[in-house]
């Protein structure tokens, strides 16, 4: 048991800091710091900078061109990246699809798709949820019917994050209706340019348009775009969900968020004194910080176990629930810290186009972020689903 970082780990942190100081464009970090919406170009720019450094696919094995970092290295990078307000790395191709292709894809699929993820040639989005299949994902209804050397896909996907930027989508589709739900699902790669696909934005309560509906009307997909075996898609989907959620706890985001809360609360005045000196507010901030300190260690304990080859199962559900509770608490504190200046309608999109927000404390669109991050406890398996998984795994006989 040793909580200190080794000399190598400290040197690595220094290297990461130096890289971020030199290579992270100020325009990007400033946008992230102020909670402004990033454009497709912004994302692609950061993606390319990381790829040049060889630090994009940090979780991939070396044989596929990854950095093969261990858990502690990834944690250090995530911490530093969040502290420097680096854009988040869009995960759909890199850490969701890629591990599935590496484990279940054919050699041809790996050789073709993986380099395109690194180069940024393909922007992937995820076709999982449907209007009638949320937490009960296995009830999905989008169908794929084999027709010669093609599948014909019909149906609708929803909550497709950044689908407006994507040229490719990986989808769960029903290929057999006559068996148990989980046993009739396949994993299909679909070109978004194919005729019959329509993408419609969904405007969220914060005014942003980060998610979409995707409609499939007799979409022709080459049969070679099937990953693994037909009707085994559920296995691959579960692998995707439980295996590579390295940053599920969002510790780096929470740390950066808490720093922002403190910064705002130092300049915001309450009763003629900085808000941070108000004992009630200070107590809430302190409690969140105490929870986060423990969470950071829980996260490290679990990812070091994962690094030692033990696949995280129930632990990733625990990280998801606690990590999102803490992040949402910090969002709530940020909203409160801003006081009356939380009220002006400042969505991330609006903030992007308007540098002259009225708030003298530069809190940014904290209220919009608060509303946007209600999603944290809903997506990726709602927190109730996670609690169900924990109970099922740990209660044994009580199933």
């Amino acid at each position, binding site marked *: *048991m*040793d*909580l*200190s*970082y*080794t000399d190598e*780990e400290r040197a690595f942190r220094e290297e990461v800091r130096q890289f971020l100081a030199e290579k992270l464009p100020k325009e990007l970090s400033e946008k992230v710091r102020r909670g402004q919406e990033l454009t497709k170009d912004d994302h692609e720019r950061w993606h390319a900078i990381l790829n040049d450094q060889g630090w994009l696919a940090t979780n991939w094995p070396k044989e596929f061109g990854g950095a093969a970092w261990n858990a*502690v290295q990834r944690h250090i990078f995530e911490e530093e990246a969040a502290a420097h307000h680096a854009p988040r790395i869009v995960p759909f191709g890199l850490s969701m699809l890629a591990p599935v292709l590496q484990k279940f894809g054919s050699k041809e699929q790996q050789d073709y798709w993986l380099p395109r993820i690194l180069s940024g040639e393909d922007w992937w989005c995820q076709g999982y949820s449907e209007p009638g299949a949320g937490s009960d994902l296995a009830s999905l209804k989008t169908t794929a019917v084999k027709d010669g050397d093609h599948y014909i896909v019909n149906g609708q996907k929803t909550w497709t994050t950044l689908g407006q930027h994507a040229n490719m989508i990986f989808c769960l589709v029903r290929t057999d209706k006559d068996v148990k739900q989980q046993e009739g699902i396949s994993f299909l790669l679909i070109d978004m340019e194919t005729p019959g696909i329509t993408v419609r934005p969904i405007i969220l309560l914060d005014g942003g348009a980060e998610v979409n509906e995707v409609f499939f009307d007799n979409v022709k997909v080459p049969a070679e775009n099937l990953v693994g075996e037909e009707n085994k898609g559920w296995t691959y989907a579960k692998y995707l969900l439980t295996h590579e959620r390295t940053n599920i706890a969002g510790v780096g985001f929470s740390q950066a968020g808490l720093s922002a809360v403190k910064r705002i609360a130092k300049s915001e005045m309450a009763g003629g004194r900085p808000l941070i000196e108000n004992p009630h507010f*200070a*107590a809430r901030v*302190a*409690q969140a*910080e*105490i*929870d986060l*300190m*423990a*969470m*950071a*260690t*829980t996260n*490290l*304990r679990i990812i*070091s*176990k994962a690094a030692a080859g033990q696949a995280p199962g129930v*632990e990733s559900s*625990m990280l998801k*629930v*606690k990590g999102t509770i803490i992040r949402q608490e910090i969002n709530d504190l940020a909203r409160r810290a801003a006081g009356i200046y939380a009220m002006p309608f400042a969505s991330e999109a609006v903030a992007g186009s308007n540098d002259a927000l009225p708030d003298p404390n530069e809190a940014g669109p904290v209220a919009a972020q608060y509303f946007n991050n209600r999603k944290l406890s809903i997506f990726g398996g709602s927190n*109730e689903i*996670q*609690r*169900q998984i*924990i*109970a*099922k795994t*740990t*209660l*044994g*006989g*009580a*199933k």
Partner: protein
Amino acid sequence: MNFDLTEERQMLQDSLRRFLRDKYDTATRNGILESEAGFSADIWNGLAELGVIGALFTEEQGGFGGAGFDIAVVFEELGRAGVVEPLLDSAVLAGGLIADLGSEAQQEHIEALIGGALQLAFAHGEPTSRYDLERVTTTASQNGGDIVLNGRKAVVANAEAADMLVVSARESGEAGDQAGISLFLVPADTKGLTVTGYALLAGGRAAEVTLDDVTLPESARLGEAGKAFDAIEARVAVATTALCAETLGAMETACDLTREYLGTRKQFGRPIGSFQALAHRMSDLLIDLEQARSAVINAAGHLADDRASRERHVSAAKNLMGRVGRLVAEDTIQMHGGIAMTQEYELAHIAKRITMADHRFGDIDHHLERFIALSAA
């Protein structure tokens, strides 16, 4: 960064767990709770033979452990079994202060302590000091080369059994000053020392200790005159970490018992754990149990840091353990229903240990306030 136990600590954990499983079942422990002494001399000697007391001291002090993680491993196991024997008071607190500050002659007591032959108590808190370590009004005055103590010490755990007490008293300054506090080693049979004992709600015994012209030679002082505060604070940090680890162990038992109960107890024809209202509640406890484990690791891992970092991590841990402890104690009783309300059921004692830990060395509010002050500094 590494979260594995060393081989030595793993062995210590295994042997202590085995010992307690064999010798310390619920019925035995409940018998000890009702005994006049409030703890078992046999168990105490067994723990000493096993090397458990030695594991709480460094090699320099005559032990073979003494680091934060040694202490955490031992106390987590003691907590799992709901052990009431006074290791925290005799060894970590009073013994630790003697080891930290004692002269060569005073240090000799440590050997007897590690061997199981000595009982100690730390008489520090007073009726009006609550959780403040510097609020000492008991006086130590000079009288012709002797030292005379006068005052009252509150809820001194293990005072009746103690062969000697480590007593704090003020040689100069005001009640709230850190400077001016000294420690003295007082044999239990010293004239003017009165010990009025009582049982504690969660096991063990304590006493109100009055010092009425207790006269001691200069050689009874531990360390330098008026400069004991830093050592007291550092020692209480170790003891607080030990108590947090003990509470973690107790919470593990509470959760294990509840998990088992949810799987076997049937109502409406099915195990009650199949009802989501209970299943999700159990999941939340298990999540917070991992948070508690991390808090103990953080406290233990920073015990050797400088004061600010050490105390900040200790206060963070004690606050979190208090919050999670209340949740675990209340919810595990609730999920069990009536059976957990009976004294003979294991959870009853365990839940009391968890809850009453919040009343030692500072509760949730005390440590939250302290954490804020330490973070601002």
